[in-house]
C-alpha cells in the first residue's frame, strides 16, 4: 500500500514531464559583427565591453560568436571566437572565460584596420551560423558605423535572407560627412533598416548608448 503511494506520484510526474516536454527551443544565438575597418578599429574597447556584457547575460545552451568585419567578411576565418554554452554552470564559466580571453587577444593583436567594410558579407555569414545553431531566438549585433565600403570585385548587391533574425546596430558613430549633412546618417540607418526588414529580419534596432546595454534585449520574446 505504502509503496504504491510513492510510486504513483513519481510515475505521474515522469509521464507528465515526458508528455509535456516543450519541443520549442528556448536557446538564443547571438552573432556579433565587429567592424575593424579604418578608424573604427579604435572602438574595439567598447566592443569588448559589449562582449563582456553579453557573456554575463547568456545562459546554458545559448550560442555566441564574435566575427570581424573587414574587406570581405563572408568567411569562417573571420570568426574570432564562438561558443555553445554547456549545461554545467562551472563548465559554462570556463567557456565564457576562454571566449573573453580570445576576444582580448584579438584586440591586442590587431595592428591596423582593413581598407574596406563588407557588412553584407558578415551578415550573410552570421545568418548561416545562427540558422545552424537552431536557436529559438537569433540576433545579429553589428558594432559598426554602418558605412559599407566594398572594392570593385566584391558583389553584394543582391537580396539576402535574414528571416527570423533580429538585427541590432550598436555604437553607430557619426562620420565627418554625417556631421556636415545629418541626413546622410539618418538615410544610412533607414537604408539598412529597410534592407534588413526586406530580408525578413524580425526586428531592427539601433543602440548607441553603451552605458545601458540592457536595452539590447529589451522586450525580447
Amino acid at each position, binding site marked *: *500500500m*505504502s509503496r504504491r*503511494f*510513492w510510486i504513483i*506520484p513519481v510515475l505521474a*510526474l515522469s509521464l507528465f*514531464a515526458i508528455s*509535456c*516536454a*516543450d519541443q*520549442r527551443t*528556448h*536557446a538564443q544565438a547571438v552573432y556579433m559583427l565587429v567592424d575593424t575597418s579604418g578608424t573604427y578599429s579604435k572602438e574595439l574597447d567598447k566592443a569588448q565591453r559589449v562582449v*563582456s556584457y553579453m*557573456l*554575463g547575460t547568456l*545562459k*546554458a*545552451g*545559448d550560442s555566441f560568436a564574435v566575427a570581424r568585419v573587414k574587406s570581405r567578411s563572408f568567411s569562417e576565418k573571420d570568426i574570432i571566437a564562438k561558443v555553445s554554452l554547456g*549545461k*554545467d*554552470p*562551472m563548465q559554462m*564559466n570556463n567557456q*565564457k*572565460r576562454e571566449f*573573453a580571453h580570445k576576444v582580448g587577444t584579438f584586440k591586442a593583436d590587431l595592428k591596423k584596420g582593413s581598407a574596406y567594410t563588407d557588412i553584407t558579407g558578415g551578415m550573410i555569414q552570421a545568418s548561416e551560423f545562427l540558422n545552424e545553431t537552431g536557436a529559438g531566438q537569433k540576433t545579429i549585433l553589428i558594432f559598426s558605423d554602418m558605412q559599407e565600403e566594398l572594392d570593385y570585385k566584391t558583389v553584394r548587391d543582391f537580396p539576402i535572407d535574414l528571416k527570423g533574425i533580429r538585427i541590432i546596430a550598436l555604437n553607430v558613430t557619426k562620420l565627418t560627412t554625417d556631421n556636415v549633412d545629418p541626413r546622410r546618417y539618418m538615410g544610412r540607418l533607414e537604408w539598412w533598416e529597410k534592407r534588413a526588414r526586406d530580408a525578413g529580419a524580425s526586428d531592427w534596432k539601433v543602440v548607441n548608448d553603451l552605458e545601458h546595454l540592457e536595452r539590447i534585449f529589451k522586450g525580447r520574446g
Partner: protein
Amino acid sequence: MEILHALIVWPDQLLLSLLLLFFIAVPILYGARQAMHSLLHAMFRAVSNPLRLMSRWLFKSADALRERNKLVLLSRGREEVSLNIVKEFDRVTSLVERDLHGYPALQRKLMDEITRIEEEFQKCGEVPPPPPEWTKAVAAIAKIKPSGDGLVERILEDISNSIDDVYDKVVAEYRESSKQRHNILKNFMPFWRSVDRSLKRVDKDLTGMQQSAAKIDEQVEKFKQIHAKSENAEHSLTSSSTILFVISLLAITIAAGGAFVNFWLIERPMAAMVGGSEYIVGDIQASYLAAMVIIFFETLMGLFLMESLGYTHLFPLNNLNNRMRRWLVWISFSILLILAGVEVALAVMRDLIISADIALKQELAGGSAVTAAVANSWALDIPKAAQMILGFTLPFALAFVAIPLEYLIHSGRTVFGALLVLSIRALGFAMRFISTMVHQIGKGTGYLYDAIIFLPLIIERAVMNRGPRQATLPPGSSGGMAALSKHGEHVL
C-alpha cells in the same frame, strides 16, 4: 420610422396629424384591450414564473445542503468529542494507575504514622508527681504557733531547709520530665511533615481527578447536545471549524512561504543537474519542475511520517499493524533525511555556482583585485552556512504541514459548505427579486396601456355605473383592472 411617416396625414401639421392618429388608435386599442392584457400577462409571467420556480428550487436545495452540512458537521463533532472523552478517560486511567494504585500502601503508612503519633502523644502527657506523705506532717507542724521556744524554732528551721532541698529536687525532676516530653514532641516533627506531604499529594491527585471529571462532564454535555442535534451545538461547531480553517490556512500560507524559499534555494543547482536550457511547458524550465518535485516529495514524505506516527489521519492506515507502521515511520523519516542531505549538498553547490558567477563577472569587468580582497573575509561563509541550515531544516519543517493540512481539509468541508449554502441562498434571493420586479413591470405595463385608453374606459365605467350590472360588480372595480389583477396573480 418609415411607417410612421406614411401614417402622417398632414406632414406640415405634425401635432394635428398625431392627434388624429391617436383618436383613430384609441378605439382600436380599447377593442384589443383584453387580448393585449392577456398577451402582456403571458409574456411577463413567462419570465417571472420560471425565475420564481428556480428561486424556490434554489432555496430548497440550500436547505437540503444545509441539512447535509449539519449532519456532516455533527458527525465530525461527535467524532471529535468522542476522541476527547476517550483522551480524558485515558488521562484519568493513567492517573489512577500511577497514583491511586499506591493508595493502600499510602493509607497504611498514614495509619502507622498516626498510631505512632498517638502513642508518642500519650507518652508525653504530663503526670504531676504525687504529694509526699510527710507534707501532712509538715502541715500539722505548720499549725504550731510560734512560742519563742528555741528547740521548736530549730526544728522548724531544719524542716524548712529539708523542704527547700526536696523542692529543688522535685523541680529538677519535673524539668527533666518536661524535657523528655519535649524531645518526644520534637521527634514527632518528621512524622507530621510526612503526613502533611502525603495528604497534600492526595489532595493534588484528587484535584486532578476532579478537573478531569469536570472536563469529561463538559465533553459529555457537548456530546449530548450534538446527539440532540441542537442549534447551539451546530453554531458552536461551525464557529470552531471556521476558526480552525482560518488558522490552518494561515499555517499553510506560512508553509507555502517556506516552500517558496526552499524552491529558490535548490532551483539553481538543479539547473546544473537537469540542464538549465531544458524547458517543459512554455517558459517552465526543467530545473523548476525538478526543484518542485523535490519539495513535493519532501512534503509527501512528511505527510507519511505524520500519518504513520498517528498525528494525522488523512489516509486509511488502520489496517496496518504496528510493525508495518513502525517500518513506514522509519522509511519516510530516512527518505526525508536523505532529501535534507541532498538539499544541504545543493545549497553548497548553489553557493559555489554563485561565487563562480560573481568571480567571472568581476573578471570580465576587470575587477580581480577586488575579488582577492574580499575572498578572505569569514563573513562570506555566513550565507553558505545559512543556506545549508535552511536546506536541512526546511524539509523537516515542511513535514509538519500535514497537521494544518488535515485540519484545513476537515474544516474546509464545513466552511465551504456554509459558503455554498449562502451563495445558493443569495442566488435564490436574486432570482426571486428579479421575478418580483418582472411581475411588477408587467402589472405596470398593463396600467400604462389602460392609461393610454383612459377615455373609453371612463365612458365604460360611467355606462356600467348607470346600468343594472352596477349591483353585481364589486365596489371600486372596473372590468379591466379586475381582470388584470386576476391575471396578475402568481401561480406560486
